[in-house]
């Protein structure tokens, strides 16, 4: 093979440049995760509408008002929500967009909290490592609180996380640089760094389902109705009636001034 010095340098340089471009623009891995799904435009798939009025009208992003209520007196800690959430998003092992905590309070007002594998495997065994004088035990499902004053949005240096006009805190994984400021900022530990995409990820209240008139996956599978979701523009929705009614609703870490739109029913003071 005959090759002169000039050609050789040209080839080496172009090879090096094109090679380094692969480092700058990594292969899109997010696409692979969602390949295996129900296509929204698919006429064959019958998905009945669960949030009324979403499909009938053009979605006006400025006029939406959704609420999420968790009734912890009805939660039985089965972990259906956690399983559904993992399957809906193919969440990598060890990370949780939503999880269920077990609280045990004894007569000395000691509080014991545990959450084995985020509640993914359910709670099969009682705790044996604590004194036996428990007086109050309950499960607390946790997810994104969709704060009106979201600390995660405030700290993001690149505008990769934001509050959409319809009140959802969403992630723009194209812009996320993976600095993890938002993960530290979130008082509810709702965020994590996806080990595959290296970008921050969080519960979105299943924004893609809501926009298609479906309930979030966790609400869909909850067997006891402990998780409730609906539009406040619809006066017949369960969440509207609860929010309008006299029942006591609380939010987590109220003193932090994050103004969550996730409400809890039957919440104990000890829950943080």
């Amino acid at each position: 093979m005959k090759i002169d010095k000039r050609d050789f340098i040209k080839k080496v340089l172009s090879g090096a440049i094109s090679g380094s471009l692969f480092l700058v623009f990594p292969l899109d891995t997010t696409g692979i995760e969602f390949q295996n799904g129900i296509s929204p435009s698919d006429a064959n798939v019958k998905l009945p509408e669960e949030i009324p009025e979403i499909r009938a009208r053009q979605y006006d992003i400025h006029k939406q008002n959704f609420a999420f209520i968790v009734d912890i007196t009805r939660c039985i800690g089965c972990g259906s929500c956690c399983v559904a959430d993992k399957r809906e998003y193919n969440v990598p092992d060890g990370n949780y967009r939503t999880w269920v905590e077990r609280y045990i309070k004894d007569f000395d007002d000691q509080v014991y909290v545990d959450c084995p594998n985020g509640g993914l495997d359910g709670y099969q065994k009682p705790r044996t490592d604590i004194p036996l004088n428990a007086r109050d035990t309950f499960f607390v499902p946790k997810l994104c609180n969709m704060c009106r004053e979201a600390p995660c949005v405030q700290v993001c240096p690149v505008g990769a996380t934001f509050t959409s006009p319809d009140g959802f805190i969403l992630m723009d994984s194209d812009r996320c640089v993976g600095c993890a400021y938002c993960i530290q900022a979130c008082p509810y530990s709702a965020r994590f760094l996806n080990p595959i995409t290296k970008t921050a990820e969080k519960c979105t209240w299943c924004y893609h389902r809501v926009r298609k008139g479906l309930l979030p996956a966790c609400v869909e599978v909850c067997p006891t109705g402990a998780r409730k979701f609906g539009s406040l523009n619809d006066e017949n929705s369960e969440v509207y009636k609860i929010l309008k009614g006299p029942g006591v609703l609380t939010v987590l870490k109220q003193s932090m001034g994050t103004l969550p739109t996730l409400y809890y029913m039957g919440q104990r003071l000890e829950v943080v």
Partner: protein
Amino acid sequence: MISKHSVRIILVVLSVVVMAGGGLLVKAQLIPKSFGLYGSYRADAIEEEAQKVVRHGTNKSCFECHPYEAKIHLQGDHKTISCEFCHSTYADHVSNGKRTAALPVKKGEEITTLCLRCHNTEIKARSTIVIKTVGMPDHLKQQNVKLTHTCNQCHHVHAPLKYINEAKKITGLMEEKP
């Protein structure tokens, strides 16, 4: 003839124009489209999020093709349980209206484990208003069955009291056990 001073002034003005223009061009290139439409973020990201594919159907989407299971499931106490919780995701089973793969069906001990995920009395945190719970193996002893019995030998998994109510009807023993 232009004086030396004017040339310098023209050069300064020109370089400012070139640098500012270049800066603006680079800025326009770096800021993504739709950035700033609603706030300091890319507004298109909202639509991208909304377009993500759905993987969980609803119970009704399962019942479309499984009317026999639907009939039993909807009559029983388990009617609020999602099909997909026990049988896995709709998207793993159907694609474009066609069946692509079989979903797992739980068998034997797996069923007992699955039942006790909700119905275990030992986990004290379960409200009796919401769910009936049993302690194992006490429940098996009380019912005078072998300790190796799995739940589905007496209880239909979709409608737990189906066989029990039928048996009571046949034998005429209608009194309810607490």
